[in-house]
């Protein structure tokens, strides 16, 4: 039977395919083409075909290590702050749950730039250090433009991204599972370790990915709170495209960056899938 009209499935997937092509395939293709090109004498892109830009990346590992170091540390600290908070809101807060969630989320309706800028005043010597000096706690505390400030900026800006998936996981957790664990002789800590934590692990992994990936592309925090003394991939990219106007090298770095994040994402989702082991797979006896 001749096909006079496209099958319904072809028609219905067309927008998705178009979206994918326009927003994924095309930009990545452009990115790759530029990354194997040559920088023009006045900057920008001047065609050509070479893998030199990728080889050059080997000489520019510092921002990559720096980014990995700070994003892993920042993600870990964010997790340590977010988990107890999410636990409290999901399990203990009762009727105040919505209010607390709103308190966590509402500040993020303000631009990240403004919020982060505000911290420069809080951490500057007229801010928190001045208060502590007045109280006689510490004499000369320097917070702004330190690694501490960067980690603080990460925790502050990315807390909701970590908190919400964990909150959802804990919220969905049937309270009778914790009750059952205690009933069967496990104390609070043992219950947390054996029941609550493993069952919220998919939320933890999801939250970590949601924080880690954008933090790796972070530009503002190292500039505003790190005083430009810590150099992230995002800063390297900005400099390559604007100050150096070396588009091919910038494209190569961006490409490597995308690959790195894709790898992290794949590993992360695989771990999450395993952890949510509650899944329906399993060997029939």
């Amino acid at each position, binding site marked *: 039977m001749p096909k006079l009209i496209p099958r319904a499935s072809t028609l219905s997937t067309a927008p998705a395919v178009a979206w994918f092509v326009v927003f994924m395939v095309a930009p990545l293709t452009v990115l790759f083409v530029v990354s194997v090109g040559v920088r023009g004498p006045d900057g920008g892109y001047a065609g050509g075909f070479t893998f030199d830009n990728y080889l050059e990346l080997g000489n520019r590992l510092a921002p990559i290590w720096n980014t990995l170091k700070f994003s892993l540390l920042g993600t870990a600290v964010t997790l340590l702050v977010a988990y107890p908070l999410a636990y409290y809101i999901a399990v203990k807060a009762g009727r105040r749950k919505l209010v607390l969630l709103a308190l966590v989320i509402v500040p993020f309706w303000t631009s990240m730039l403004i919020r982060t800028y505000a911290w420069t005043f809080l951490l500057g010597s007229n801010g928190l250090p001045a208060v502590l000096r007045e109280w006689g706690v510490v004499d000369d505390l320097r917070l702004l433009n330190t690694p501490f400030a960067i980690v603080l900026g990460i925790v502050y800006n990315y807390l909701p991204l970590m908190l919400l998936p964990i909150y959802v996981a804990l919220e969905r957790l*049937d309270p009778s599972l914790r*009750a059952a664990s205690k009933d*069967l*002789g496990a104390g609070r800590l043992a219950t947390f370790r054996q029941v609550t934590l493993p*069952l919220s692990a998919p939320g933890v992994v999801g939250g970590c990915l949601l924080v880690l990936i954008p933090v790796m592309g972070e530009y503002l925090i190292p500039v505003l709170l790190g005083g430009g003394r810590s150099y992230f991939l995002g800063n390297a990219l900005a400099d390559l495209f604007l100050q150096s106007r070396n588009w091919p090298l910038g494209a190569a770095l961006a490409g490597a960056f995308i690959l790195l994040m894709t790898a992290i994402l794949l590993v992360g989702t695989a771990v999450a899938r395993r952890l949510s*082991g*509650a899944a*329906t797979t399993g*060997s029939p006896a």
Partner: protein
Amino acid sequence: MGAVAVEAERTQQQLRVERLSKHYGDVRAVSDVSFVLEPGTFFALLGPSGCGKTTLLKMLAGFETPTAGEIFLGDRSIADDPPFRRPLNTVFQHYALFPHMDVAKNVGYALRQQKERPARSEIQRQVERALRMVQLDHLARRRPQELSGGQQQRVALARALVAGPRVLLLDEPLSALDAKLRVDMQSELKSLQGQLGISFVFVTHDQSEALSMADRIAVMRDGRIVQDTTPHDLYDRPVDSWVAGFIGSSNFIPGSVSAVGHGRAEATTAFQRLRGVPTVEELTSGQSVQVALRPERIRISMDPQTPPQVDGPVSPGTVQAFSFHGDQIDYTVATRDFGTLKVRVPLTGEADRVLVREAVSVQIGWNEDDARIVPTWDADNG
């Protein structure tokens, strides 16, 4: 070792609840509840939703702190112990199986929490034994969510029993099962309890479940135990009209006491004076009562000319409706003398013999021994 030692041993296993109360602000979820359970009792806490039975169970398990009162296991007070230090285990309403552990891990959970954790092989042995007890040893490696509701129920049972609790608490454990499975599980639970010889405290709102399984039933209403006795006593001698209506079904004819004596009472009703067996001793003249008639105790004669053979009142009537249940038929009969009554006729032979249609004239009646005179329960000052 003699009778004294055996008696002491028994006392050690007693679960004793004394004047236990739980208030949430002004709401009295449980008020002044007391009972003693001898070991090996199948004890049902029966009542409608909101009566406090689940709160009471949670206090026994340790999930709720009593506002007042005491809980003793033997001579030791356990009211202040956290759940994980009480030698009682719970089967939860929706089982609460750990979804990230297989069946064997679920069942072995309690053993792994023990201070002196048994060797791995010992745990495995005990898990296998517990699973065999519920006939699930072949499913040890499955995840709970791969099992049917009945299988999950058995896993929950094995998990709660594996560590050898002194008392097993069951929170409406059969409510999520379909009717047929529920009946099977009822007899299985009963026989399991018999084998283990420990007490089961079983919370349910289903009176037939309680009647069929329990050795003792405590009926709860508004946070209080209103009657605590054997199933047949509960059925035959309900303390008031509310219990009579909650357990089984009854026809009620309201009236007031006009005479008491010699194991009989007489009530004045709108129709005539009716005599019956009082269910409580302290009836007083003029007290508001109900003449309660179980539908299956009313006799019916399909021949409108011949009243049934009874020593009590009879009346002609007309069948208004009927429903066929296989083993019985329920009729609604409009009687000339007593208003509309439900009548239940057990089917011991062919249905044709007693099956009649609407608008057929019949005669009904009952023996005086089968009428119960029960105090009226009034929700406002009950």
